[in-house]
């Protein structure tokens, strides 16, 4: 078992994103640090476009994540609907 993580700036853009990630990944945990939030999860973390869109009420492009992204760990696979980090490859 290895941990993957993703960290974002703490701001109004990322609040619904973080909520979506935590809802979609019940095994993930949230770590709040000064000005940043880090989400840790065993093995895999999946970010879903639709979950974010439900919360923000508009279309969302997963590449927008990059604007507020701080760091990631794990292998990344990104397509139109999901942004996946894992150590399972």
């Amino acid at each position: 078992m290895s941990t993957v993580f993703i960290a974002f700036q703490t701001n109004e853009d990322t609040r619904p994103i973080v909520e979506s990630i935590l809802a979609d990944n019940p095994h993930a945990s949230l770590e709040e640090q000064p000005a940043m939030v880090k989400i840790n999860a065993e093995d895999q973390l999946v970010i879903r476009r639709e979950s974010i869109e439900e919360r923000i009420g508009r279309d969302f492009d997963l590449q927008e994540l990059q604007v507020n992204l701080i760091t990631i760990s794990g292998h990344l696979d990104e397509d139109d609907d999901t942004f996946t980090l894992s150590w399972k490859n």
Partner: protein
Amino acid sequence: MDMQATKKKLGLKEKYAHMTRGLDWETTYQPKEKVFPQATFEGIKVHDWDKWEDPFRLTMDAYWKYQAEKERKLYAVLDAFAQNNGHLGITDARYLSAVKLFLTGISPLEYMAHRGFAAAGRNFPGVGPRVACLMQSIDEVRHAQTQIHALSNYNKFYEGFHAGASHQIERLWYLSVPKSFFDDAFSAGPFEWMIAIGFSFEYVLTNLLFVPFMSGAAYNGDMATVTFGFSAQSDEARHMTLGLECIKFMLEQDPDNLPIVQKWIDKWAWRGIRVLSLVSTMMDYMLPKRVMSWKEAWEIYFEQNGGALFNDLAKYGIKVPDCIAQCTVDKEHQSHQLWLTLCTHSHAMGLHTWLPSAEEMDWLSAKYPNTFDQYYRPRFDELRQRADKGERFFANTLPMLCQVCQIPMLFTEPDDPTKICYRESEFQGEKYHTCSDGCKHIFDDEPEKYIQAWLPVHQLYQGNCWPEGTDPTAEGFNPLAKYLEWCHVDGKDTGDYEGSSDQANFAAWRGAATQNG
């Protein structure tokens, strides 16, 4: 952010295929090996460049769009900072030593990274890495520029910012540490560059530099640094991914690549860890309000995260670098040993240092229960006693530097924290000194390269580091004063923070900001 996501004509994967692979062409006027002459001499075998894929699948059109958004955010905050006396919002002007170190030591590396990735992008025959390197090259020059721009706000008020990011990196003794790291990488071939910077620095180590640093800047009220830092950091996830893809690609292309890649990982892990010892002092000593200790950051970002990475790479036959055993010992000592050296040499530096307060030493004891009280508290106590008598101690000779990492010989033997570690190699009848088994190993593997190192202390003693026209035989000649003049270090920039003009100005201005008068 109020950004409109537009309905796409092409899916992400399709768009990526068209806008990377689809842009490549076969050369006809010249054979490929003449167009890409650096692609083979390092011994890395590549059979199919199309196997390289950027997992972000970022294309230039999207790149410009998101980078523009990042810049808009950044400059909005910089305006606010300048308009609202942001320079008085920091916890204490001592904190600025960390920022000065960043501006003079790290920002020039961003510029070197810009050049290096431009070169790597030029030299790789595959279009996937070429496009990714192009974006990273543009990112890196953006980082250098935004850092210099953001920190220029401090230059209006505080000492030590005037020489900026370009002059001192080639002159000041402690800045040759980060400089030599990038010089070493840039003078290697494109594949080694990718392991050195893309993998070792960006993937394995960057979290230790940027994440705790920026979080620490936020904790200390430094709106300027947080903003450029996070703006730069938002590019880093892409850089880390490029580094990781690169290493997987090399290992998957040919089994013969494994020993070459392993050698580079071992070398650059150790080189990077040595450079980061500067960051260890920042986290444990320079931040008035601390986020976490260096040791804690090391455990989270190197041991746990690096551990996960090396577990994953094990399937290719990659082993954890040998130096990790030494690092497990060093994490308890490194920040204290280096800060003691900086404290006793800050009369020859472009920033202030200070002795930790009683409360800070208690924090250090709690964070380093195995080492601080036993080895380091007594030394700080001794320095404090002297300072209280008006005899603040500064060492009046310059230390010997390691031929490889260029850090003064100040770190101790792995099995004895009271004995300085020296290693010696001989090459072509000359002796060369290194600070550790790790650096000696690197030297012995490529002595022809490292004997060319420009070591500031050697150069200083040879008389090469004075302003033009200096006469060292003149009455009252002071070599240190002349060296500092050559570095553009002003007397107000150096020495202890206690009694500095930064300290006095900060107190006066902050006082003026909260009352009329």
